[in-house]
């Protein structure tokens, strides 16, 4: 295997790619748009709930207790100010409690408490928020329940440092960009085969091994560079750069082997695209567990891309180090080499 022909083939593929506006430029426009969307999306998570209160005083101990649970009670100077605050969206609801509430309850009355909602509050959330009113009034009634709760937090406690959706999405975008190159690698090979240029290349001093190496390097390089670009542009790469770069490289290598396999399965470009979509959908499933934790069953952990998504998620959001992530890297490397070997073998048989 000689470096010269490999380098020439890579250069040829890249020139042809960028000459084609649809293939070469549009995906980068897509990349830029993803980065723009990242910066438009909210950078903070609104964790707590703010309620406006007017009327009867609420004991400080209850205010503190509710604040610990994420519910902030804010006193208003008038009912009009309360209504305005709710209407403006500053508060999820307003509670107007009669100042003589306890007196009226103790004299057997059922006083009226107003719960004020904005027009955008969903019906189900109204019912949930009404429970806050009842919780407050029950405590004011002075009839505490003698129930003791032993609490245990499972997993890292992210209170006050929740991951914004845009930060959850970036590793997923990077994964998507990498996986899309499976289609790219497969098409690179099948296109040459359809045009007959593959046979022509093999008649020259270029060996099959050099040809496959060149295609693999082109695919890996494109996948890796685009993924690095999106992580760098959004600032995500700053946290654990070495681990992330290693993960992206290993993920990109996965693309090469799978791209070869898909090229073996496809008769023409359209069937290659169809197979690529199937493979992509399967490999993308572990990403749902980052977006929507608990959605997917544990069986999804057998999918190879799980190790990449898990590595990126933990490295970016939980500051995981090499001691925690080395196993993911080793497993990914083994999977990469396995798919590369399998893909190369299958492709050689098909092209021979």
């Amino acid at each position, binding site marked *: 295997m000689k470096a010269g022909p490999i380098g020439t083939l890579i250069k040829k593929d890249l020139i042809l790619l960028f000459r084609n506006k649809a293939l070469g430029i549009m995906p980068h426009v897509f990349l830029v748009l993803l980065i723009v969307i990242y910066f438009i999306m*909210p950078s903070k998570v609104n964790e707590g709930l703010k309620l406006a209160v007017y009327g009867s005083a609420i004991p400080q101990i209850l205010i503190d207790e509710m604040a610990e649970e994420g519910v902030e009670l804010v006193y208003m100077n008038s009912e009009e100010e309360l209504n305005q605050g709710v209407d403006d969206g500053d508060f999820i609801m307003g509670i107007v409690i009669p100042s003589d509430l306890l007196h009226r309850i103790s004299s057997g009355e059922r*006083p009226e*408490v107003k719960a004020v909602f904005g027009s955008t509050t969903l019906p189900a*959330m*109204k019912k949930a928020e009404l429970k806050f009113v009842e919780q407050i009034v029950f405590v004011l009634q002075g009839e505490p*329940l003698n129930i003791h709760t*032993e609490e245990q937090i499972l*997993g890292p406690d992210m209170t006050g440092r*929740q991951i914004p959706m845009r930060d959850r999405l970036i590793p997923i975008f990077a994964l998507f960009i990498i996986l899309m190159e499976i289609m790219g690698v497969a098409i690179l090979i099948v296109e040459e085969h359809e045009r007959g240029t593959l046979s022509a290349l093999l008649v020259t001093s270029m060996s099959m091994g050099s040809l496959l190496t060149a295609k693999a390097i082109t695919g890996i390089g494109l996948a890796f560079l685009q993924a690095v670009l999106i992580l760098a542009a959004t600032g995500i790469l700053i946290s654990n750069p070495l681990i992330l770069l290693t993960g992206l490289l290993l993920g990109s290598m996965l693309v090469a082997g799978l791209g070869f396999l898909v090229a073996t399965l496809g008769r023409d470009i359209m069937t290659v695209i169809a197979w690529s979509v199937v493979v992509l959908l399967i490999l993308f499933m572990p990403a749902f567990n980052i977006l*929507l934790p608990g959605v997917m069953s544990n069986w999804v952990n057998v999918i190879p891309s799980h190790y990449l998504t898990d590595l990126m998620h933990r490295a970016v959001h939980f500051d995981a180090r090499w001691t925690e992530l080395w196993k993911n890297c080793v497993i990914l490397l083994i999977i990469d080499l396995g798919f590369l070997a399998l893909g190369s073998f299958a492709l050689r048989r098909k092209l021979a």
Partner: protein
Amino acid sequence: MSASRILTILGKDLVHSPKSFHFIQAVITPLLCTLMVYMLFGSVLSGKPSIGFVFDGETEISDLIQKLEFLRFSEYESIDTLKAAVLSGKLDLGVSIPTGFDQDVRKGGPAYLKSYIWGESLMKDRAVIFAGLSDVLVELAGKEVRVDVKTITLGNGESKPIGQRFLPLLVLLAIMMSGLLIPASAIVDEKQRQTLTAVTVTPASFEEVVVAKSLLGFIMSFVMGVLILVLNNSFGANPGLLFLTLAMAAAFASAFGALAGVLLKSLIGLTNFGKSLILIIYGPGILSLFPRIPQWIAKVFPTYYIFNPVLEVTQNNAGLTDIGIELIILAILIMTLTVIVFFVGKHKKLQIA
């Protein structure tokens, strides 16, 4: 231009196009997405926090908690499976209720329970769960909150559940996928197989071919838009206006598809073209899911003038006067695209000749 030749080509395409990958993709994808939205927003994406229980003995808590519509409830056989569910994020909170808990609460306590909180759950979700759980425990204890709560809603709108907010995006997806992919892939496929040259040797002209393919796209686009609305049972109070909007949307999408078909040389180019335009085409729908993002940004996208009229008619019972300006802009966009297709088509026809 002959109507009979156009209809002949259209008839041929109606028979043979359903076998193509892009046709199948344009039909299946919106239907699959509709199914996914229906399934997911009935559960994990409903916005409701989730609570799981392990009951060691007989208790009324299960019945009481299931009445709370704002929580998703599930029951587990053992503490280990409950803790695993909490740790995976499936549950925001897991609670273990020991034997005799109900009796202890009714006697006035003390009663004990264990709770397992998912570390990544939002504080507001925990607050909602605790409020619901407190309500259940108060009822179990036989006590009551001795006030009447009067609910006041400001403004005159009623908020829609998030699953319903996806509907205009699904309609946009159905219309644009069919309108863009079907005529574009039909034209490009004919170019690649060189049957286009063969057809133009006959009395049928290049323009007639493009019109026939566009009509195919228009029909499929309109049908798919209506189908998605039928599946979601969401025609609003003004179905006539809705059909007009869908027809104009289908016309826009198929004109865009014809332009893509005339410009692009290969199906792979079409695939990448479609991939690259995902955000531009579906931008207004995606932005509408994030109300905190300034919504004026959506007006920059051409598909906003499809998306917003559909949303207003299906969800806010808008009339013609409410969406008239947007429909006029859409009509201008359709005419502009048609003129561009005409001129570009003329230029490309000379190349084929």
